[in-house]
């Protein structure tokens, strides 16, 4: 594969990633958001595989595989399981209207492109428009976490944000050292585990959601 082809593919994948991000932000039901983030992770895995073939970096294959298994399959399945287990509150329960969140997301994307335009020196080392897309994904993930009340949608936001970091890392440095990538993935798994347990436990003992924790404040 020539460098131009790789760049074109990565750019296309970046567009698709942004599209999945918009789906996540706009989703009115939790399950849809979960599907969207699974698709996003799947696209990240593909991007990893493309970069692996282009650069011949074996580590990237491993990372792509792990992403596919853990983030595109395992974690969405866990989230679905929790949703079924709780059996209520299928809605995402936004803090501000979804339309306003979408507007904010647009602002985030625009700002990311504007920002990376000023990072000329950094951009030379990277593949196409991957940096602004990565920043946009990361920030919109955090935006999702900030504008949703329930813990499950916040988890979806966390995964999206994580995906953005992954994409940036892959595109900018052509893959971080394997050990760091594995560490990041483990982090995500742990966060998912802890949050799942928290959600279920809080629900089963006091019948409240994480969003109600502000009542604890003195």
């Amino acid at each position, binding site marked *: 594969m020539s460098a131009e082809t790789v760049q074109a593919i990565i750019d296309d994948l970046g567009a698709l990633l942004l599209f999945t991000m918009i789906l996540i932000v706009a989703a009115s039901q939790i399950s849809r958001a979960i599907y969207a983030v699974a698709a996003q992770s799947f696209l990240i895995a593909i991007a990893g595989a493309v970069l692996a073939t282009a650069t011949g970096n074996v580590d990237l294959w491993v990372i792509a595989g792990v992403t596919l298994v853990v983030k595109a399959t395992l974690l969405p399945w866990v989230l679905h399981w929790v949703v079924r287990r709780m059996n209520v509150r299928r809605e995402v329960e936004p*803090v501000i209207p979804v339309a306003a969140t979408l507007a904010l997301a647009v602002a985030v994307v625009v*700002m990311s492109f*504007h*920002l990376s335009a*000023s*990072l*000329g*020196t950094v951009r030379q080392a990277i593949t196409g428009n991957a940096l602004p897309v990565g*920043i946009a994904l990361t*920030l919109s993930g*955090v*935006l999702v*976490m*900030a*504008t*949703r*009340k329930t813990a499950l949608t*916040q988890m979806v936001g966390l995964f999206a944000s994580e995906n953005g970091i992954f994409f940036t890392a892959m595109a900018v440095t052509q893959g971080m050292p394997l050990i760091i990538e594995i560490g990041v993935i483990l982090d995500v798994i742990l966060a998912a585990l802890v949050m799942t347990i928290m959600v279920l436990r809080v629900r089963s003992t006091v019948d409240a959601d*994480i*969003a109600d*924790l*502000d*009542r*604890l*404040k003195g």
Partner: protein
Amino acid sequence: MTGTLLMAACYGAGGLSSLLARWSGRLALGVGHLAALVGAVAGLGVSLGVLVGDQGRTLTLPLPELFPFARLTLAVDGLSAFFLLVISLVVIAAAIYGPAYLRAHSPGAGPARQAAQVLALNVFLGCMAFVCCAGDALTFLLCWEGMTLASYVLVVAGDRDGENARAGLLYMVMTHGGTALLLVAFLALTERAGAFDFAALRAAAGGLDGMTRTTLFFLALGGFATKAGVIPLHVWLPRAHPAAPSHVSALMSGVMLKVAIYGILRFAFDLLAPVAAPLPFSWGWTVLVAGTISAVLGVLYALQQHDLKRLLAFHSVENIGIILIGVGLAMILWRREDVGGALATVALTAALLHTVNHAAFKGLLFLAAGSVLCRTHVRNMEELGGLARRMPWTAGLFLLGAVAISALPPLNGFVSEWLTFQALLGAASRFHGPAGLVIVFSAAMLALTGGLAAACFAKAFGVTFLGRARTPHAEHATEVPPSMIAGMVWLAALCVALGVAPGYLMHLLDAPTTGLLHGPGASAVVTAQGPLVLSTALTASGTDATAISMTMVAALLIALTAMAWVLRRGLRRAPPRTAPTWTCGMSPTARFDYTATAFAKPLRFVFAALYRPRRAVIRETAGTPYVFQRIHYSGEVVDLAETQIYHRVQRGITVLSRTIRLRSTGRIHGYIGFVLAALFVALLLFGVGQR
């Protein structure tokens, strides 16, 4: 060389002996203190070896390499050796005194507490000795921190109550703030030098510009002043020192504060001193003024204390102030030939002499207070009284210490304060305008301090030891065991020896004074007219020289006393008759005696602006307003530094945290929103910066 190793081995063995507490707490106490005693004797040997040996000799000893980035060394030069001498002298007394005190004071202490005390004591002593011997910044800081932590353990390991824990916490917070300042000062130097040893730091400091040099000095001064308890950084001292076991109080007050003085001297005259130029004026004046304020306020607050050990702790603030007056004056005069000359040596000699003198008499006073405490279990002197008949040795030794600390001849406190006066008056005649006024004012304040200290100890001794026993605690007190008396006698002997024949000590002060000031030694300046006469030949012609012979003063005093006694015996006509005190027909009770509060009342009136005294009198009447059943009186004075500085800071922090609490909603997505906004702003700023 071997002495240093022996010293380390002894303190190490003392620390390990805490393991013996598993079998016998008593054995652990004995062996631990014995090891400390041997270590102190070894330290004495090392320091005397350096002080008496060739001038300018530095004993260096590389330590095993613990860190890949720094070489640890010990270097004992004149200054280090002098402070090691001070430490060792007091440790000897404390080690003799300690085991019996700990057994008598807390007989119910379990082996765990005893083990902790023995371990902490030996770590404390070892670290204190090695701070002074450190040859590089890392060893210095490690030992400094070890000293702080071990003394914290000793403060909180005493009696188990909330007061001790709070005192310990305050001590921890304050001294760690100070250590942080020191860390900055040291790291700024090591970063420039690229090495940790003092020689490299000295070389690196040579290239500093004036602003940086002064900043670094004030950072170090802040750090050391916190440890030394200079007002307004003293608030931890009157709380933490009384909380520790008494022989540890003696060590903390008598010696640990001096380690901070060592640090100030080391930084000012050695590490940060400009090459062949006088120190900046701001350094010396700051130290002089801070010392004057500490001296006066320290003794004023001491006057209003009724807790015996707390009173002594405030006197440490005062004496550190007196030492700093000497240090500040030496810093002002050093290398200014037009005004200073040999006068800087006199000032430094006065400071160093007061360092060892204060260690001796403050150690003695704390040990005597500990003897009272372990027999009566009461620290408030209003509940004591009449102990002179029940504890004659303790009373006599306390009186001796009181005379010494009040700067009365012929004891050692007088000698160093006299020298400080000579230096101040000599400098006052050389500076004109405001500078001369400040020095004269400082001398006046020093005189006031001496007078107030005498008043304070008249109160402390009178209320505690004279009159009648006010409570059963004091009534059933008995004399302490001989080993405790022996510890006190050792320090008392030092007080007398340093007071009567101070000239002989001047040779020991030669090494530190020439080492620091590169000028004439102490003995050449102060004992120019022979070892029995102290003189300050301040000019080459000796025109304004002042001289005093302490030996003659002592002999004169003894002769006068003997004469008075003989005259009294000879003139007495009727034989003495013992009769009850006449009290207008009432039977005398202990309530008739002068109380400490009453004794300090006139001064409370005079200095009301400083004390801001508060009093509350509650009268319980029986039906008519003319018959009182009971009157309850309570009064207190405030510490100005505490109310004006610390309470304000505390209120500020409280208001700030309340405001933050109002803003913090407790909603997770709100917090994430804050993170997002912060990220946005950071990225935007970054983007602007890149453009």
